[in-house]
């Protein structure tokens, strides 16, 4: 009998501990599986918010994958629109989806808090690839769009795909829809599939596949930034090779549409303090992000503007009518 009681007690205390933890304090939803860019944003920012004592206790990270963020969007819109403790990680990728009408509602549904930095897009091939330069790759695509299989971590019409299409368009390739595109569950899996010879080109964020750039397993043909990135100054920009294309992927947050002005402003202030901390500046740089701040109304306007541009690009490459 004593044993039974003890067993029950152990189970009870264990269960209580497990379920009590998630209930504490702020929560960040990463609208993707663990391990990707959004997950990284939530975990890093969550860790720093707690380290800088900007929130009480720890920030709980919830992964809510599906529909390139649409699932989390729908969930917040329908269930947690007024939750002042909740922030949701998003990025240029999410705005692309909204611009193409692939989210259940438009950008006005949510309140846009801030962006803290941007990842830079790269175009990479395997180290033993015949393509030595961006020119060579784009020439091959021009001669026969179906001759090279390209890939990335978004579906067709997603940001990884659009960045590549922008380059192809800049190179004067007409048959954009003839270029083969394969979606993988992240930059890492895309690169390993390229190393295994399944696909020839990966379009991804630098931060996601930094390890492979350092190890020399892949050759970066172009980084899609105005200036060479600080962590890898030797990688050539697309601009320096005569293609006027940039592809930043900013990282930021939104919160529910019914959150009060005070709570909204409180989050913006907290995130700004976080942005200015040494911890964030260091974390951002070491993971390949360029720290860039836009917050509050300025950020909301920026998102609205980008959504409009994005819809234009998508129309031009035939993703939407």
């Amino acid at each position: 009998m004593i044993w039974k009681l003890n067993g029950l007690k152990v189970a009870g205390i264990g269960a209580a501990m497990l379920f009590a933890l998630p209930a504490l304090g702020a929560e960040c939803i990463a609208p993707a599986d663990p391990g990707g860019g959004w997950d990284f944003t939530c975990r890093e920012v969550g860790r720093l918010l707690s380290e800088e004592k900007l929130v009480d206790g720890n920030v709980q990270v919830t992964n809510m994958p599906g529909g390139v963020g649409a699932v989390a969007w729908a969930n917040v819109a329908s269930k947690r629109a007024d939750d002042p403790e909740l922030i949701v990680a998003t990025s240029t990728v999410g705005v692309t989806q909204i611009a193409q009408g692939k989210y259940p509602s438009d950008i006005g549904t949510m309140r846009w808090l801030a962006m803290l930095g941007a990842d830079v897009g790269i175009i990479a091939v395997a180290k033993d690839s015949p393509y030595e330069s961006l020119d060579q790759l784009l020439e091959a695509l021009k001669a026969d769009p179906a001759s090279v299989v390209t890939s990335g971590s978004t579906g067709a019409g997603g940001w990884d795909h659009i960045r590549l299409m922008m380059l192809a368009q800049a190179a004067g390739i007409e048959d954009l829809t003839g270029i083969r595109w394969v979606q993988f569950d992240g930059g890492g899996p895309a690169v390993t599939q390229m190393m295994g010879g399944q696909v020839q080109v990966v379009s991804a964020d630098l931060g996601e596949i930094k390890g492979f750039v350092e190890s020399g397993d892949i050759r970066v043909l172009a980084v899609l930034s105005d200036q060479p990135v600080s962590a890898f100054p030797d990688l050539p920009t697309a601009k320096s090779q005569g293609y006027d294309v940039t592809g930043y992927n900013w990282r930021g947050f939104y919160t529910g549409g019914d959150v009060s002005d005070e709570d909204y402003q409180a989050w913006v202030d907290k995130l700004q303090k976080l942005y200015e901390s040494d911890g964030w500046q260091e974390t951002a740089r070491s993971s390949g992000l360029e720290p860039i701040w836009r917050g509050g109304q300025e950020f909301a306007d920026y998102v609205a503007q980008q959504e409009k541009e994005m819809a234009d690009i998508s129309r031009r490459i035939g993703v939407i009518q």
Partner: protein
Amino acid sequence: MDILNSLWAGFAVAALPINLALIVGGCFAGTLIGALPGLGPVNGVAILIPLTFAFGLDATSSMILLSAVYYGCMYGGRISAILLNIPGDEPAIMTTLDGFPMARKGQAADALAISGVASFIGATLATIGLTLFAPLLAKAAIYFGPADYFALYVMAFATIGGITGSDPRKTLLAALLGLMLGTVGLDPSTGVARYTFGSFNLYDGFDPIVALVGLFAISEILFFLEARAHGGGLVPKGSVFPRFSRIREGLGASFRGSIIGFIAGILPGAGASLGAVMSYSFEKRISDKGTFGKGDPRGVAAPEAGNNAASGGALIPMLTLGVPGSGTTAVMLAMLISLNIQPGPLLFQRSPDLVWGLVAALYLANFVLLVLNLPLIGLFTRVLGLPAWGLMPLVVAISYLGVYAITHAAFDLMVMVGFGILGFVLRKLDFSLVPVVLGLLLGMDMENNLRRALSISGGDFLILLQSPIALAIYALTAAFLALSLWLSRRRMMPIPETED
């Protein structure tokens, strides 16, 4: 020799008092998390990450803690599968097939001991494989393309027909039902909504763990209520001490299951559930004498060795390439990045302390888990001695809490109850629930890989047959099916004489 030297240095790291304490604590917490229906290794690891920050642990200690929890969960999942017919997490589904029938025969202690030893063998073999061949295996695994993964899933589904005791047609029908349920939600490659009927709640699709808890735990309770109404009782308690002679019966199956599970684990995109399914169906094909599904020790040993070996195998792509082989390793990778360790091909060279400390910790964790689990068998089997009026409400409470802790959505509680009713009806009709969950769990990955293969080929289905790896898998599948047909025909002969 290099490897042995590195491993020796790793043991020096793992044997630090703080790390030893984390191993023991992690193993115990993991076993508990794994045993609770709904909570599995992904949640266990994710829940503990804030703790590692709060304690200010360094990267090596954090990884050791999380890996101990990960291995612990794999041990723990079997406990509720055997005792209550409710798998603690997805990879433990296969363990219900023979584990619960053993408990029903009063052999719960035997089943727990057999599966504990099988888990130990599986995890240890996988850790040895990880130690000796990690870089080599990772290089081989990257040559697995979408067409090859598709072939692997075809193999899994082709062998599902024979895994349960009931009519193979019913098993296939149940798997199809699972596949159908798996298509609900937003399509990952295009974002198009399928079968959501305009409801945002269904955009996620059905989470396999919610379906699993509903199908197994809730339907079990419905059955209990009905049985009580008819004056039935719980399973007999039986002996609380395992008989060591029975453990021997599962040894061969453990070794075979370990190898199959390990291979499934190495491939990013396969994983522990697939490892357990393949191990069980292989074991059943080669050694079933009509006893599988009725409480055969080998049917407990094979899937447990398989899913533990797969967990060890999944660490290989994580450590050597920085690519997750499972949901749990994905969380662990994210944590490494938070701690300023860049996972990727250079991890072995740049952070040898971390990698080898972790590998050494895995060996220690295995011993701790075995030592922890065998004496606890007596305690666990006492759960069966609890009065049903106490046990069943506890199971309901844990199911609700577990599902809500994972999904944070009341809607998913309704989904869970819905699946519970579905499970009750299906079991009344003599359908096995295992293939339903497998269809749901594996169907999505199968579809994704098919579509990736077709994107590469520009829509040409021939790509599925152009890879030598895929062809080899199809050949193996065909041989497998032929073998089982031949075996079952041979088995059919003497049965009419012995029965009646």
